């Protein structure tokens, strides 16, 4: 047994000795990381280093990839999320996810936001109305869509769609929101809106964000982890990573020497 001190209350996740294989290929090598509560943690690193793979571990989306195999432990508070008693569906209501490409369902704005709750069996229209409104407000989208909640969500702009996806994730009041390059498909204005939103959201949620934008990581994150070829090279306060990194490779990456 691991000693209980690893599972401190101020961490959303504690990852111990995590290895992940896609078939024979090892995509994550001995990862140890603690994700603090109500902070924004950024994962950076060159393409293919395993950022998305690690992110998908936290809500067990890797379960859907047949060849993926995991060794090691991930604690969410005091439960190991691969344990037998853990219900994946339940886990995913606690750990929400926003994808790189906005992926609203081809249904109305309202139905998109109500989707998660409805899947949990909530039918009461008043509750749904309320959650849809507060979620959209938290996602800073309410003012733009409140007059056409019945419009098909696919008709929204890319940036609006992404905020809708954030609202959809928020609707289940998760503890953690995972974001995989949420702004990479958006223009600068939509991007800065989402960045402001993330800073606002960290008051209530723990956020883990994968990003290729150094300036974005520096602007919005509290902690930054730098990955290279499946290994976590360095993990520290964002300030330290960006101004005083311990590892030469981190410095090289941040200063744009490779990537």
């Amino acid at each position, binding site marked *: 047994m691991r000693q209980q001190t690893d599972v401190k209350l101020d961490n959303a996740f504690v990852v111990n000795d995590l290895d992940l294989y896609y078939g024979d290929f090892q995509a994550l090598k001995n990862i140890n990381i603690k994700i603090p509560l109500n902070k924004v943690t950024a994962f950076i690193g060159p393409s293919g280093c395993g950022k998305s793979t690690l992110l998908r571990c936290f809500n067990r989306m890797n379960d859907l990839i047949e060849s993926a195999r995991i060794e090691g432990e991930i604690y969410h508070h005091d439960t190991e999320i691969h344990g037998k008693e853990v219900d994946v*569906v339940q886990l*995913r209501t606690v750990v929400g996810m926003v994808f790189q490409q906005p992926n609203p369902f081809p249904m109305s704005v309202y139905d998109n936001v109500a989707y*998660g709750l409805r899947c949990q069996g909530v039918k009461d229209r008043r509750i749904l109305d309320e959650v849809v409104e507060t979620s959209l407000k938290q996602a800073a989208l309410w003012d733009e869509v409140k007059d056409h909640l019945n419009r098909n969500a696919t008709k929204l702009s890319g940036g609006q769609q992404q905020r809708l996806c954030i609202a959809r994730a928020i609707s*289940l009041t998760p503890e953690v929101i995972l974001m995989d390059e949420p702004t990479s498909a958006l223009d600068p204005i939509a991007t800065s809106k989402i960045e402001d939103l993330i800073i606002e959201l960290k008051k209530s949620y723990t956020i883990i964000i994968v990003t290729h934008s150094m300036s974005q990581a520096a602007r919005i994150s509290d902690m930054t982890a730098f990955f290279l070829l499946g290994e976590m090279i360095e993990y520290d306060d964002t300030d330290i990573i960006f101004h005083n990194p311990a590892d030469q490779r981190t410095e090289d990456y941040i200063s744009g020497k490779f990537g």
Partner: protein
Amino acid sequence: MTSEQQNSKALIRERSKKRRSLYKSVDKAMQFVFRFCGLLAALMIILIVFFVTVRGIQVFLPSYDDPVSLREFLTGMRWRTDQGIYGVFFIVINTLVTAFFAGLIAFPLSTLSALMIVKIAPKRLSNILTTVVELLAAIPSVVYGVFASGVITAIVKRIANLFNYTTFGGNSMLAAILLLAIMIYPTITSMAVVAIRAVPESHELGSLALGASRTQTNFKVVLSSAKSGIFAGLILGLGRAFGEATAVSMVAGNAFTGPTLNPFNLVRTLTTTMLQGLHETVGTDYDIRFSVGIVLMLVILFNNLAINALRRKIESGD
């Protein structure tokens, strides 16, 4: 720039000019071919519709030898060729009811089968099912007809006996409905398979990441994203149900009057009316089949419009 470089540049420019003009004429030629093909298709439709309409209208004109009253034709509840009575209204009702129930049976089965094939069944089973559906689609109508008149009618007879009804050897509306349901099942299924395959994986992942189960994801997101294609399949399937003549005429029984809502009664559909005895007849009885053809085309047209309206209604909200 050296003069050599300038020369070669000029040469390239010259060549590419030639090539461009070649591309242009190929483009033009291809455009002509495409236009021609499009025109040909349109022309065929116009020709068929025109021909059927002209032949179909003439029996109602005063210039016709023994004109039929259009009003009686459209509202009539009897079809007695021997007595010169041609009332198509009950036939339209029979046709609509038969096709409707065939669709009602086949549509959910097809949709679920397609979901099974694409999303649920393991690869091997899915391949087997796909092959089965393809084979079903490839069986000619007349084979379905023989099967129906040998097997389906026998089953219907049993069912009728169970409820203390008599049938004419099992020939009945129910037999026609079951036959058509089987016949349109592969049509709707294969369209639904294509539609479900086309649903982007990101929708599914989005749903699963929101804590939806597989089943919830399949029904709420996959099917609803594939709606358009599945409805297109329904249109095609019902089109087949309305248009199928050979097989249906082997079990429908060609009732003289109607409409009937009793599933064990004989029925008469638009297609069977057009087909039955086509080669042994002349005069009004022959010409009026074109009028029935017009009615059939109108029925199919309205059906398609209705399904499209339904689809739009479902798509626009919950």
